[in-house]
């Protein structure tokens, strides 16, 4: 018999230390969630946590885990070769087909970069389908920068704008110090035929949207991502519901004009 709550077992092929409170697991699986979709990671005995896919690849799945709760804490103790339980993929991700033929602006703050890495990997594989790619990534400090190796690669092929809020010690990326929204404000960006995808702290997204609106972007060009406490991930348990929308099945990616001004 089946159960929608039953997870399947997969093998961890690699554990990559990212920062002090982030690790990345590479898991052997063909689940291959679409960019923006997520999987539910299950640790029997501890619980479950929804984690966005950070890759686009039908052999392995990369999950960036920020250690914040019991489940992510338990995940962080797993090692290469260990088994991990996943169910999914779930959610409505980025509308990759609708984005074809357009310029893309990707804005991420902190671990919000994880789901956007998924779409960058997708773009890498379908580069001719898209036009100019602008990346705006902000982190707290140079130590907090995620996907350091990838960022160096992306720098070569895309319009990369990396920033850190503060740099007390070294700044190996030689990037500007300040909020990523400040960089965004100064950037010259094409408005026509452009879509913006953003993921990160609420404050960062709000501020970015205001800047983009000032630049002449319309709300229906902007895609935001919501973070909520998802339990069942199948549109039932009610925990992630915002005014009738289930973040787990109707999101986590929403077009901004559909969720603008949502109060609870």
């Amino acid at each position, binding site marked *: 018999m089946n159960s929608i709550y039953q997870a399947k077992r997969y093998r961890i092929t690699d554990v990559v230390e990212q920062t002090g409170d982030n690790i990345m697991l590479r898991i052997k699986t063909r689940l291959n969630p679409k960019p923006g979709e997520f999987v539910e990671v299950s640790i029997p*005995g*501890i619980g479950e946590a929804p984690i966005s896919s950070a890759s686009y690849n039908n052999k392995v799945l990369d999950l960036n885990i920020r250690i914040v*709760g*019991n489940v992510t*804490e*338990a995940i962080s*103790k797993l090692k290469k070769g260990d088994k991990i339980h996943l169910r999914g993929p779930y959610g409505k991700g980025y509308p990759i087909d609708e984005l074809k033929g357009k310029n893309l602006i990707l804005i991420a703050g902190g671990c919000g970069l994880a789901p956007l890495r998924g779409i960058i990997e997708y773009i890498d594989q379908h580069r001719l389908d898209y036009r100019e790619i602008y990346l705006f990534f902000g982190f707290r400090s140079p130590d907090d920068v995620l996907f350091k190796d990838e960022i160096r690669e992306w720098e070569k092929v895309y319009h990369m704008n990396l920033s850190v809020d503060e740099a007390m010690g070294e700044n190996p990326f030689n990037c500007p110090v300040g909020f990523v929204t400040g960089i965004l404000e100064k950037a010259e960006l094409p408005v026509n035929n452009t879509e913006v995808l953003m993921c990160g702290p609420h404050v960062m997204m709000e501020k970015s949207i205001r800047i983009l609106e000032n630049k002449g972007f319309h709300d229906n060009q902007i895609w935001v991502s919501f973070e909520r406490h998802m339990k069942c991930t199948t549109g039932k348990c009610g925990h992630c519901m915002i005014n009738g929308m289930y973040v787990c099945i109707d999101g986590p990616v929403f077009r901004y004009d559909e969720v603008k001004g949502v109060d609870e």
Partner: protein
Amino acid sequence: MSSSSEKKKPRVAIHSITGCAGCQLVIYFIRDKLLELLGEIDLVAAPMIKGKNEEGPYDICFVEGLVASQRDLENLKKWREQSKFLVAWGTCATHGNVPGIKIFMDEKQVEEAVYKDKSNLTGENTPLKPTPLEAHVRIDYRISGCPPEEIEFLRMMQHFLMDMKPVVYNEPVCVECTQREIKCLLEDGKECLGPMIRGGCDALCPVVNHGCTGCHGPLEDANIPQMLKLLKANGIPKELVKQRLQKYAGAKFEELGADIR
């Protein structure tokens, strides 16, 4: 999933300061499941049941009772320093409870009434304002109850042993009471503090037709003005509600807002 062979057993202590010792007894009365649990932990200090007790460091230290004397305070501070996790176990430890009602009276008068000879109330016996643990040291987790439920101890130990941050039940008594389909006492015109008191007791008192008197202490976001109105409609004056809350909330009564004070 902790396999005892590869992992060191956590050093656990169950200590007590001023109180009736009933909260500790809850743990010892668990029996079967406690014996099973004892295989997974190292109960290094439990003065009530053990002759030989070790000083810290402790991984987990349960403390029942409140701080009412200089000795209590010194012990508590020591245990805090020696413990990774300090758990306030029982309403005395979390709120103040019955020993804490002294603060609502003239302290000198209370001392006169209790002690014929006050000459030894010096040194470590010096009385202090009876206050919950959090008034003196940092507390990691709180489980209230007079006494608390054994299931809350077992659940917390499960979480600790699985390296989890314990999750403590935080819903009003009404939840379990309604789920057990108990006829509502408040609706029946009786005195019941259920809506503003933390549950976890599985509606122990309402099940036997006795209103909740509030032994788990008030919830942080209790709607006290409305509760006073509802109880008043049942003929329960504010003064009585106040007394009930003072009895269990002790020093934390002061935090309940202006409506009740």
